[in-house]
């Protein structure tokens, strides 16, 4: 029995249940929302054992006829399993955190509706096997995240949401235009079938144009450097658990995953695309961190670091060698963990003190020991200090750069890492160090649900380096790397299996 559709069905069903249940008793949305995401989290862990081979689920039992796909199909392979794990683990921890954090917002029922719709969209993108569904799930994710960014309906949040919606709408149109031309070229929207059709054709100018359109579309959604303008506004404006989801998961699924799937598995990688990815990755990495150092708004600083860390992921994957892809995907997992943790820490600070301005904080070390400790570990992790997880993936990326004969990129990667360390020393110094200010006399540690979510993430970021142990690596990372490095054999795997 294949349970793959549950990743979409469960959050979609529960999403519309929570506002109804909220009318009966206001505790219901928390319980139901957490049960749903907790179930998805366990399901995604259980699915780790199926990542070694490619399996296909035909919705409604419409199996392909003479090799022609008829209906919708869902594809499960190593990369899918990895992304499902990333989405659902962080989703569960974010909802745990929301139990206490969202108390000072109104209407938790609708919050969980939007949150679960976003999870539906993210899971859907990851398991879809055709561009039609990928587009629809893209839009589900996008619309729910637009609404979540504006959830507080203050002036700044509305402004950020507006900016995000205009650029997001533009990105969707570019992607749809790309899909239209893609259909024109191949006559199908099924990824595996299209890939098979494309291998028989020589590269045409239309294909390059489609590539550019997808690049702009996914680049805008994933906030790569020339398209990053909306991110530092949108991510800090959302409530903290949503910032964790947006920065930790969404830009990766919408940007990196979609781009990898289309370019590596369907269109086929060419040196031109790889070089573009590497250059964009390096530019994002360096400029993002430069912009981050000067920020005083804590969540805005973290948002710029997201751009920078996305640069590492894109650089690693853009190298195109198995080691580079391994580094990129491992950094993707690690960044999800420590960036979500940092956004939750920033949320805790805002929850306790009511401000995000680093200049106004200070001396919170003794008042909030757990937040202090978790922020410290997360800062070490993002700056790439051993033995935390960020170190291992950055090391892999730097090694892959040198191995592939691009030492210049390696130097930039190390420089970016040093600047990251500097900017997080600033965060620790201004938020927690120094004399205790009298205004913060009344500040207490945040409620236990929020602490629990942060502590789980700390444990993850301390221990995730162990994923490089060969037996664990073979179970989690290697299947995903194989999907990307084997490239066009995706079509044969899906249609044959």
């Amino acid at each position: 029995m294949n349970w793959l559709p549950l990743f979409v069905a469960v959050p979609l069903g529960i999403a519309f249940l929570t506002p109804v249940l909220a009318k009966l008793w206001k505790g219901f949305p928390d319980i139901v929302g957490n049960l749903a995401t907790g179930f998805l989290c366990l399901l995604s862990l259980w699915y780790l054992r199926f990542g070694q081979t490619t399996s296909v689920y035909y919705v409604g039992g419409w199996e392909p006829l003479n090799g022609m796909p008829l209906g919708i199909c869902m594809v499960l392979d190593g990369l899918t399993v990895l992304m499902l794990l990333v989405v659902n683990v962080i989703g569960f921890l974010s909802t745990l955190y929301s139990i206490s954090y969202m108390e000072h917002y109104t209407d938790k029922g609708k919050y969980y509706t939007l949150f679960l719709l976003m999870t539906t969209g993210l899971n859907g993108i990851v398991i879809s096997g055709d561009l039609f569904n990928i587009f629809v799930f893209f839009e589900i994710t996008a619309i729910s995240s637009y609404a979540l960014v504006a959830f507080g309906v203050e002036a700044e949040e509305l402004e950020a949401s507006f900016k995000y919606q205009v650029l997001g709408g533009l990105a969707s149109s570019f992607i749809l235009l790309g899909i239209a031309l893609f259909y024109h070229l191949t006559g199908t929207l099924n990824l595996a079938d299209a890939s098979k059709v494309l291998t028989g054709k020589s590269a045409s100018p239309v294909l390059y144009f489609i590539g550019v359109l997808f690049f702009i579309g996914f680049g805008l959604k994933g906030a790569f450097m020339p398209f990053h303008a909306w991110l530092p506004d949108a991510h800090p404006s959302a409530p903290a658990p949503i910032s964790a989801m947006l920065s930790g998961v969404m830009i990766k699924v919408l940007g990196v995953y979609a781009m990898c799937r289309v370019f590596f598995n369907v269109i086929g990688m060419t040196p031109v695309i790889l070089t573009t990815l590497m250059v964009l990755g390096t530019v994002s990495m360096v400029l993002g961190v430069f912009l981050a150092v000067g920020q005083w708004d804590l969540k805005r600083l973290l948002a710029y670091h997201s751009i920078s860390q996305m640069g590492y992921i894109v650089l690693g994957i853009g190298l195109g060698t198995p080691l580079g892809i391994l580094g990129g995907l491992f950094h993707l997992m690690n960044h999800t963990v420590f960036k979500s943790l940092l956004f939750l820490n920033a949320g805790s600070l805002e929850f306790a003190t009511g401000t995000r301005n680093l200049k106004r904080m200070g001396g919170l070390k003794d008042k909030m020991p757990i937040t202090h400790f978790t922020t410290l570990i997360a800062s070490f992790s993002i700056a790439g200090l051993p033995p935390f997880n960020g170190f291992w993936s950055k090391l892999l990326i730097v090694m892959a750069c040198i191995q592939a004969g691009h030492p210049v990129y390696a130097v930039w990667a190390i420089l970016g890492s040093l600047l990251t360390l500097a900017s997080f020393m600033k965060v620790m110094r201004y938020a927690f160090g120094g004399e205790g200010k009298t205004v913060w006399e009344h500040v207490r540690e945040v409620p236990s649900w929020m602490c629990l979510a942060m502590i789980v993430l700390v444990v993850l970021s301390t221990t995730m380096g162990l994923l490089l142990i060969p037996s664990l690596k073979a179970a989690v990372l290697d299947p995903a790397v194989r999907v990307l490095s084997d490239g066009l054999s995706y079509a044969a795997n899906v249609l044959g299996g």
Partner: protein
Amino acid sequence: MIVFVMAIVLFLIGLYGVLVKRNVFKILIALSIIEYSVNLLFALIGYRRGGTVPILTEGTKAGTFFVDPIPQALVLTAIVIGLGTTALLAAVAVRLYEKYDTYDVRKIRKLRG
């Protein structure tokens, strides 16, 4: 061929509007123009001259020339999605006016850095 070019021109008009116009609602309209130009192009690409309705019934002969329903289904979905995004954007635009007392995007600038 000329209709395809017209759809692309429509797309570019919308893009111009999004990039140049300063009024929140004009940006909204420009985004809608972009969406509809893409939908139009997609529907045109999916059109097959002389094809019949793609419904398989008892009397359908083998080898009948069908129109592929996928592009039409996708365009319909995209139109509905477009309705959703437009409504949400309009709602946010009205809320923005309540907060800033203006529709000019140059004056809606509290976020910096």
